[in-house]
């Protein structure tokens, strides 16, 4: 497998992990709205369903993108595909 193919393989792997986390917090948990509401786990005292829609999922998305960007930069570095500063 060529260098570029390996790079793409890893990139694709990272994409699947990122999309899986994204799926859980944008779609998965909202299949269980009623269960979240009844849950005893209440972040900062808010009902869980309410919290996830107004802060929880939103904040996780922000962190997820920065995490993804860091991982992708590592992959690019590993295969020497990082851009030159003066590019």
């Amino acid at each position, binding site marked *: 497998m060529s260098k*570029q193919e390996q790079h793409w393989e890893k990139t694709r792997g990272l994409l699947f992990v990122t999309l899986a986390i994204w799926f859980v917090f944008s779609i998965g948990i909202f*299949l269980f709205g009623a269960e979240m*509401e009844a849950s005893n786990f209440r972040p900062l005292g808010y009902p869980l369903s*309410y919290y996830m829609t107004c802060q929880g999922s939103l904040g996780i*998305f922000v962190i997820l*993108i920065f995490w*993804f960007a860091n991982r992708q930069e590592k992959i690019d570095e590993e295969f020497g595909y990082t851009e030159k500063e003066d590019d």
Partner: protein
Amino acid sequence: MIKGKFIDNLPKVYGIYTGGFLVFIILMAIAEQAGMSAKLIGIFFVAFTVGIYAIIGYLSRTLQLDAYYVAGRQVPTVFNGMATAADWMSGASFVAMAGGIYFKGYGYMALLVGWTGGYVLVASLLAPYLRKFGCYTVPDFIGTRYGGNLARVSAVLVLTVASFTYVTAQINATGTIASVALDIPFGIAVYVGLASILICSMLGGMRAVTWTQVAQYIVLIIAYLLPVFWISNKMGAGFFPHFMLADEVARIAELESQFGLGTVKNSAADLATVPKGLAGITKAHSEVNTTPWKFISLAVCMMAGTASLPHVMMRYFTTPSVKSARRSVGWSLFFIFLLYSSAPMLATLSKLSLMDPNLTTGIIGKSIAEVQNIDWYQNWNQANLMFVSDFNGNGTLELNEFFMGGKAVVLATPEIAGLPYVISGLVAAGGMAAAMSTADGLVLAIANALSHDLYYKIIDPKAETAKRLIVARVLLVIIGFAGATIAALEIQGILGSVIWAFDFAMSGLFFPLVLGVWWKRANAQGAVAGMLIGLAVGTWYLIHVRTGGTPIWGVTQLTFGIHGALASLVSMVVVSLATKAPDAATQKMVDEVRIPSGRTVLGKQH
């Protein structure tokens, strides 16, 4: 004071700007104490901020193609994040979102999840790759990746339908705010709004829009956060509302059951007397009030739509590198998060201050005559945003007898909570900034696609730079006027048409864009089929539901993009596989796009 290149001094320039704006707010507050009229304060706020945007727009004028189309590709990561946040958060986000949450609760918050979750798709599937490609516009990518004028024209078509639906709503919002703040008729205010929008974008294209959007973000975020924090502290609800309103949310639920929410229903005859556009509280504040499918389908449409709307995507063409494009998406979402996470808090504070009899601002349970005598009630009643009526004739205002317009949550809450008028002026300036920044991005997206992809790439490929830039500017003015003319007709509501824009964009562009990067086998025939069939099926379904047809799979007029995008995916895959694979050059081009280093696929000037 400032030496060297503008780009190197950005933190300093915008730091001074922010400080200056805060000083301006303080000056206005002093003027208010000294007896300046509310109307004059409103005029000052709007005129001062719009004036600054105009100056920035003028200073950023340019005669260079890559400055006009992609701001010279030198917008730093964090500043591009701010500009994208302003580009993204429209008048609807600013003025209507808190109201939507106030009235519809959990079911509406699918929009919050969708409008933020979409950025994960932007960062992981598209933005860095499109930046590497080096295109000027979104159809530029489609046209070059798939090859052929048909693909390019189809992309221009989808882009125009989606963005134009969106832009009329934004010009409408600018007009609404300008007409209230400057006290002029809506029909004229729309054109005042348009003039401000064009001043920011015409001379400098993307470069001017970028630097005005950063300025607009600063105004709109101050205007949104300051009242939320102030009200929360004034009510004693908590120093940092986002983390401390759990008791208030619980208190609202308690009051809802005490006031008989859901048990006392208004008769149709009573409701007919309520002015159009106003609503009462009929849904519980924090309860799960919708089915999982309704919630998820709406969120999915907004997410896929986010990843297909060209005015957002083209912001990531302006960063210096692929790496910074990727990071910039994270910053964009962070800046958006600051406002979106505050909207539910504003809705909570607003509702509690009206409902709680223990607070001096509470009106439910007071006598009708007393409420009708309150100053702010009279003002907002006159503005057609508030209404009370004693349906049961007991002389007391019940929860089901109070009606409000969605916009009032953002616009009227500062006044209800007893904040000085200077805050209301600030909120008007913020709403104007939000609507203008989005309208700028949209008008530019449409005009650039028409001038670059239709005029230069297809009609007159030999046109010189000067001529191309003149055509781009003439188109900008034409699109702006067309949008304003339709906005002046007031055919549709602001929020409804915004949601439609997302559905149109996802129907036609989501899969052709994503598969262009992630599936080498995708070819021109497939992409054209995907765009045209997706758009056609989406539009057909919208008309089908609007004209009373039975919904398929519970998909409503707000989520028609589900059918559109599905049709787009299926037709794109089937047609691609049934026709010839893309040639070796195209395959190599896709390989190039997939790595950050090396030259862009399209040259610096093209």
